[in-house]
Structure formats: structure tokens, C-alpha cells
């Protein structure tokens, strides 16, 4: 009985989120009869894929108390680089993907090194990376929308199906499972959580915080690179603007999923549910024919609400205190 309730408690956040997700689905299906169709749901899951893949790696930075803002630029650059390697330099598609992954890992490693060894805040380091990676992407692609026509196996990554389910969905679920195991079941996961929970205590207990952080940013860049390759294949396009703004969706998904930006805890499954919710909200706005300007407004509100909920403060209590203040001051006089 004890272990059962503990298990329930441990997955409380995920369960609550899942409840909210179901509620959202009910509301959307009541509002629009186009919502609960196989086509629409597949569509949502598909668009959720890219964000979902990115979150599986990007989630580690917040768990250490940091952040990675460079994932979207990294993804765009990855698609462009893979295309150059395959179609300009004529490399085999597998070799091209591997080289792209190595470059992605190198950029993440650099983010980690600058953050830990040169003591620049992760926010600034990855914002700079976001900017220069976008610049490199523009430079390499001439700012063009390059259509990728071949090789055929590469294009299958994005558009192929296995047992009727799109391959990107397999990739996403594989990464979610791997990332979940990495965070919950491995020494590295424990160290990451410890660094975020109390860096000094972790250090005195034998954890090397710098090494841990460098690995964290490397992983983040690698999953962004994978997302970029999937995106290039899916859209058959290499374009520097392809993922613009995705880093905010990624952070939204992570935060909505119950990971604190202060570090020390996190849930990969929660972040996946978060990504699906972001997808549903955008989908809902589409179904309601709302102008696209409403998408960022909705995303912004969702981030705020999720953060307020994660802080664990009671909203009614805050409001009560706020409104009680002038009255109380008068009474004291």
C-alpha cells in the first residue's frame, strides 16, 4: 500500500497534467467538431514532434538551474548543414547526419564550457549562440528556402510511415524513453538533479558540477540537431527561419510539464505532455480561425500560468493580501 501511494505521489505532477490535457481535449472537442478527427489529431502529434524531440534534451539545462535558448537556431542550422553535406558535397546521407550531429554536439559543448569555465550566465551564452547560429545558417543558405529533393531515404525520415504511424513519432517516443531513463535511472541523471538542487552540497559530495553542466548543454544541442534533421526531412526544406521561435515553445512545454527553472527537479514525461498541450492550444486557435497573432499571446499566458502554479503559492491568498493591504493600514492607524 505504501509503495503504491508513493508511486502515485511520485507521478502526481504528470497525472495532474494529464488531467488538464484531457480537460483541454474535451473543451476543444465541444468547441469544434473538426477537433476529434484522426486527421486532426495526427496533425497535432506531428507538429508536436519537433518540439517534443527538442524538449527531451533541452530539459536538462533547467534541471541544473540553467537554460538553453539556442535550440531553435541549432535545429535550423542542422537542416541546412545536412543538406549541404548531402547535396552540395555529395556525401552519403548517413555520414552527413553523423557529421551534423558531431557539429551540434561541439556547439553544445562550447556553450557548456563558456558557461562553466568562463562563468558567463547560460542565459547570455545560449542567447549569443542562438544569434550567431542563425547568422551562420543565413550565411550558408544565402537566406534561401532550399528545397531538398533527394536522397530518398533521407526524406523518408520525415514523411515515411511504419504501421501507419509517421516515423518522427517513433523518433520522439524513443528519445522520450531514453531521456526519461537517463534522468531517472542513471548516475548522470542523479548528478544533474543534485547540481540543480544545491551545487555546493553536490560538489562537497563528489559531484563535478562543471563536467555535469558541459554534458547537459551538449545533450541539449544534440537533440536540437536531431529535431533539425527531422524537420528538414519533414518539410523537404533547408531554411534558416524554419524553427524561428521554437525555443519558446520548448521552454513552455518544459515549464508546463512541471520542471522548475530554478533547478533540482524535472519530468521528461511531463514536458512531453506540455508539448502536446502547446500543440493543442495552437491547434485550437487554428480550428477557431483565430488570427496567428493569438498564438504568441496564448503561449505567453500559458507560460505565466504554469510558472505561477509551479511556484506553489495560493493565488486567492495573494489576491486577498493584495486587496487587504490598504484596509489593514487604515485599521492600524
Amino acid at each position, binding site marked *: 500500500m505504501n509503495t503504491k501511494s508513493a508511486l502515485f505521489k511520485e507521478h502526481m505532477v504528470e497525472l495532474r497534467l494529464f488531467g488538464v490535457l484531457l480537460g483541454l481535449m474535451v473543451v476543444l472537442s465541444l468547441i469544434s467538431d473538426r477537433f476529434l478527427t484522426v486527421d486532426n489529431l495526427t496533425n497535432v502529434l506531428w507538429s508536436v514532434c519537433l518540439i517534443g524531440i527538442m524538449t527531451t534534451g533541452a530539459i536538462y539545462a533547467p534541471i541544473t538551474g540553467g537554460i538553453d535558448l539556442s535550440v531553435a537556431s541549432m535545429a535550423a542550422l542542422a537542416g541546412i548543414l545536412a543538406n549541404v553535406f548531402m547535396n552540395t558535397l555529395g556525401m552519403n546521407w548517413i555520414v552527413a547526419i553523423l557529421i551534423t550531429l558531431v557539429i551540434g554536439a561541439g556547439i553544445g559543448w562550447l556553450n557548456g564550457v563558456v558557461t562553466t569555465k568562463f562563468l558567463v550566465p547560460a542565459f547570455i551564452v545560449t542567447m549569443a549562440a542562438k544569434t550567431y547560429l542563425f547568422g551562420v545558417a543565413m550565411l550558408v543558405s544565402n537566406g534561401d528556402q532550399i528545397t531538398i529533393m533527394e536522397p530518398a531515404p533521407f526524406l523518408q525520415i520525415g514523411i515515411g510511415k511504419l504501421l501507419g504511424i509517421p516515423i518522427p513519432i517513433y523518433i520522439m517516443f524513443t528519445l522520450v524513453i531514453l531521456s526519461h531513463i537517463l534522468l531517472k535511472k*542513471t548516475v548522470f541523471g542523479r548528478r544533474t538533479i543534485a547540481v540543480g538542487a*544545491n551545487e555546493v552540497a553536490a560538489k*562537497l559530495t563528489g559531484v563535478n558540477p562543471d563536467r555535469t553542466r558541459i554534458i547537459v548543454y551538449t545533450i541539449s544541442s544534440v537533440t536540437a540537431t536531431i529535431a533539425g534533421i527531422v524537420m528538414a526531412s519533414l518539410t523537404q526544406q533547408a531554411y534558416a527561419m524554419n524553427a524561428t521561435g521554437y525555443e519558446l515553445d520548448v521552454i513552455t512545454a518544459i515549464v508546463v510539464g512541471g520542471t522548475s527553472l530554478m533547478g533540482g527537479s524535472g519530468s521528461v514525461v511531463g514536458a512531453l505532455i506540455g508539448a502536446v498541450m502547446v500543440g493543442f492550444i495552437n491547434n485550437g486557435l487554428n480550428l477557431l480561425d483565430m488570427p496567428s497573432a493569438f498564438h504568441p499571446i496564448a503561449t505567453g499566458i500559458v507560460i505565466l500560468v504554469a510558472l505561477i502554479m509551479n511556484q506553489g503559492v495560493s493565488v486567492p491568498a495573494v489576491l486577498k493580501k493584495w486587496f487587504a493591504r490598504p484596509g489593514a493600514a487604515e485599521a492600524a492607524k
Partner: protein
Amino acid sequence: MSNNVKSDLLLECRGIDKNYNGPQVLSKVDFSLRRGEIHALVGENGAGKSTLIKIVTGITNRNAGTIVFDGHDVPVEHNKNASEKLGIAVIYQELSLIHGMTVAQNIFLTKEPLLPGLPFIDIKKMNAMAQEMIEKYGFDLKATDIIDKLPIAQRQTVEILKALSNKASLMIMDEPTSSLTAKESERLFKIIRMLKAEGITVVYISHRMEEVYDLSDRVTVLRDGKLVSVLEGEEITPAEIIRLMIGRELTEDESHHKMVDKRDREVVLEVKNLSAEGKLNDVSFKLHKGEVLGFGGLVGSGRTELMRAIYGIDAFDAGEIMYLGKTYSPTVEKSIASGFGFVPEERRLQGIMGGISITGNIGIANLDSISSPAGFVSRDKELERTQTAISTLNIKPANPDHLVGNLSGGNQQKVVVGKWLIRDLKLLIVDEPTVGVDIGAKEEMYQTIDRLSREGVAVMVVSSDLPELTRLSDRIIVLRKGRIIKEFTEGVVTEEEVLRAASGIVEGGAK
């Protein structure tokens, strides 16, 4: 009492009671300050000095008693702003100065002179005003110096200037010399005497008896939350103050105060001529199997620094460490792998990970033994280890999933100790093991250390709690200004003797 005639008392506290929902921290304490005197407030750790100061400065409120400051009754709902307005200032080491700002900006923060008729700061005037104050007192400062670039001693003088600009009539200095050099301390004493000459009352809190002896006009001694005595003039001698602070004679049944000579046993750790610039000076000692070696000394005497150097947190400049007969150059990871355990001084900042569970806190120190070579953690092994730690140390609640941040201080400390106990421990370093720990957990901690020592673990204990130090140690080394000044190896050691050594009165006095 509250007539308008100015009495010669600046502050008069009567019958102050304070309890923090439980133990009585202060009971019926009287404390009075004359105008323009230097008044030392002394007592052992936990005697109630800080609480009394917090009540006077309004950081916390008293439960009973009256306070009259400069002829005004101070209400129970006193607060920090009100005390500043009355003219009470606390000189912090550096906490309240804003880095990146100049001396003048800090002094005049929130009361900057403005350009006539405009909402802009008159920087020229502000710098000139600050410079004028600096020159008046002959401080070694410039109004335009940036705080970050100043050494601690000069930051302290900025604090004093800030208080002066607030027209403070009472300045409270808590251990002001703990991080100053001898020369800097001398300069501070000169400043304190200058303040006295201006009619400002200075409350001086220090464990350094010779300073108290040199400076003070009067001394108030607290012990266990009660006023013991107020000394004046000729009555003030270091030996007398220490006697009053400790306040009890050793009784026959306090046999655990007896040193136990274990120096014939196998040497676990040998430190030779260890030096670190400004922290440690030529420290040498040996630690034996099953021995509990206590380190006494005042705050800032280098005890914590010594422990950190041995464990591998901070580097040292010269000297050698030998561990189990071999030269040892420590790093934290190596120390843990070699059987060291480390319980740091500040539990919240350095010891616990409050946001994660007991299991998480204990697991992190034992990842080597609970994971496979491929790096997967065995949840079962981890839980088993945690259960062992919980039952050996009687951690409450005995729930491995409980967040450590929600445990009581004593149980948090048990978790910090517990993560080392389930290892093959050879050397345990504990720095202030029972600060903020309730009495029950304190006794359990002592029993744990006794048990470890019987099992052959070598233990180094740093403690400012003298009864604790004498209770636990088989041998005591006293540090002062980074050097070993005294070693107690046999017979019965009294708290008084340790304190005298720590204060620099090594062989003097009767006893």
C-alpha cells in the same frame, strides 16, 4: 522614567524575555548602556548575545520586558527601520554595502543630495560631503572608490561612515575583527575610541578577550540566556570574564571530559607544515585510528580552512598531507573514494539538497556503490542504503521519500552524516556538528561519533561549542590566527582552558 530630563543612560533594557516557540533564549535580562561608553557584550555561543542585539535593533520582537532608548519607550512591535530612525546602527562585515557602487553612493544611499529643484543627484556635492567625512576621521579611503576594490577592513569603515551619516548614537559591532589582520584591528580600535570621544556608544561583541580587556569601559556577561554580571574598570580581566562566561566548576562525574591518549595507534592522517596564504600557518599534527581529534579556536582562527584543505576543497601553498602512510594530494572526489566523509559547517548552504528526498541526498554520495558499471542506478540498492542510514541514525520521519528541506534541523544533520556512514568510512570530518540542532538530536550525534570512534574511524571535530568539544574529543588542538597554539593531550581539560588558549592567554592566570 520617561521624563524629559536626559539620563546618562542611552539604552535601558529591563527584564527582557524571549523564546522562539519553545526554549527560553533570554530570561529577565537587564542590559544598559551609558552615553559615550564602549561596552562589551560577551558570552559563549548560545548565551543569547545575538538574540539580545536582534531585539534592540528590532529584527525580532521580545516577549516581555521594557526598553527605553534615549528617553523614548521602545514598543514591543519594534522594527529595523524604527531602530535606525532612533539612531541604532549595526556595523556588518560587508553585507549591507552594495557592490559596484562608490563609497559616497553607499554612504548616502536613499538620502542623496539633489540638485536644487531637480530630481537628479548632485554627484559633486555628494562626493564632497563624503570626502569631508572621510577626512574628518582620517580614514584611508576616497569617496569615489568602488566597494569591490576595497579590502574588508576598509569596507567596515564605510559601514561606520554610513552609520555616522545616519546620526547614529549607538553602534553595534559583532565580531568586527574576525577577518581583520592585527594591524587592521589596531586601526579599528583607534576608530572606536574616536567614536567614543564623539559621544557615540559602541557595543562590542567579541570572543577575543584581550580586545575586550583593552577597549571596554564596561562588560556585560551573559550565560544560558541570563545576565551573569556587569563588570566595570578594574574588575575587567580576561581570566575573570572567561570564568564568568563558563560559570561552572568541573565536577567529578564529568569523566567524559577526560582526554584519552590514542597516540600509540596506527596513524591515519599526518599533516606536515601546512600553510595557506592568510589562512593557515605551518600546521602539523597526526590523527590516529579511532581517535576523535577536536579543533578549538575562535571564528576565523583557520579551523574550517584546515578541514577544507585536507578534504580537497581549497588548495594550500606549502606543506604535505600523508594519508595511511602515503603522500596524499587531496581532491574531493579522491577523498570520498579513499574513505573520507565531510559534514560541512553550514548545513543549508553546503550540506543538504532541500528540494530532494532523503533517498536523493543519501544516494548522491554513494553513487559508486549503488550503480552498475554502465552508470545505471539500482533503485533497490539505493533504497536499502537509505533505510540503513535512517534506522542507524533514527532519522524522523523514517520515510525515504520525505523532502530533506522539510525535516527538522537535527534530522537534516542526520541525513548529512548518514550519507557517509553507509560507506567504508575511515576518516570523518565534522564542522560544527550540532548548530541549530535540538538537544535530543545533539546527544544522538555525540553517540554516533562515539560509536564511529569505537569502530576505528578517525574523526576530526571542529566546534565552537566548548562543552561539546570537551565532551567529544580524545585530544584537542587549539588554533589561533591559522597556527596551532596549544594542544591538550591528557588529563581533564576544562572549557575555561580551551577558551583561554583560543583567546591567546596561553599559560597566564591562576588555576
